[in-house]
């Protein structure tokens, strides 16, 4: 089965991704974003990128999809650049698996 890739974020950050074949869902606040996420997670999107600014405000919505194989919800930095929230998520999953943070000691 063929899946597609979606990206959710503020319009300015995501418009460019149209050119590479992503489905773009502009969202200006977390409410729109989480509603969009719930909606498209049921459709055939296997990977959903979401910008950091929005992701930070809706951790519960994203956590829902942590344990299911599809879709993968991946946080990427938006236009305003990264503030480490994406890496913070990686760190979280290390803590979950190992019980302690052993990768990002600094």
């Amino acid at each position, binding site marked *: 089965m*063929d899946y597609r890739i979606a990206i959710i974020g503020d319009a300015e950050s995501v418009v460019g991704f149209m050119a*590479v074949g992503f489905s773009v869902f502009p969202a200006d606040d977390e409410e729109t974003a989480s509603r969009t996420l719930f909606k498209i997670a049921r459709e055939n999107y*296997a990977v959903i990128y979401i910008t950091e600014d929005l992701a930070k405000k809706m951790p519960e919505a994203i956590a829902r999809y942590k344990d299911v194989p599809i879709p*993968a919800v991946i946080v990427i930095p938006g*236009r305003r650049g990264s503030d480490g929230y994406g890496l913070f998520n990686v760190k979280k999953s290390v803590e979950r698996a*190992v019980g302690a943070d052993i990768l990002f000691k600094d």
Partner: protein
Amino acid sequence: MAEIRVNPTRMEMKKLSARLTTARRGHKLLKDKRDELMKKFLDTVRLNKELREQVESKLAEVHASLSIASSVTSRKMMTEALMIPGRQGTLKVSYRSAMNVKLPVYDFDMGGGGKSGCNYGFAFTSGELDSAVAELAELLPSLVRLAELEKSAQMLAEEIEKTRRRVNALEYIMIPQYERGIASIRMKLDENERSNTVRLMKVKDMAVKREIDAAKKRDA
């Protein structure tokens, strides 16, 4: 802690010790599984971290190029240019299995046009937009790979958590429970045996005493 209440019979003891053996074997297996998963997880997550750092810095460049592009092209023009190709990328998802955990493998095809080909009209757009899109297209494989790694890490983390719970449940609850159950049955059985011996000795004493008394009476 809840004890196992069973009849103190040899039959029950045998059953319990069979369960104990199974539990021990399961515990060992699960422990091995956990260790192996952990190894895989750490490899994955290390790659994930590196790739994420790379992708994040590259993406910042792409965003910079895009904003330059949007400053030289009117916003309307740009949206139009990007939208018109109507590219619909397709993503093929297959799975590989690691210790029976399904890990996704993605294969993304942008659909239409070449790998970095801009399939919009060049007439109203600037060269900056072209190069920004080309940069983005170049970054794409890493971006997809990042999704793959990050999802794999999440799935592995979940499985490790589950396995660890099972290992701990076996190690600290089930196995000690069986051991205590077996010990208590053994004690009960030993106790029964001792009381039986004592009873037999007592009966024998009585019988001997009766014999002696009878002998004495005959002699008298």
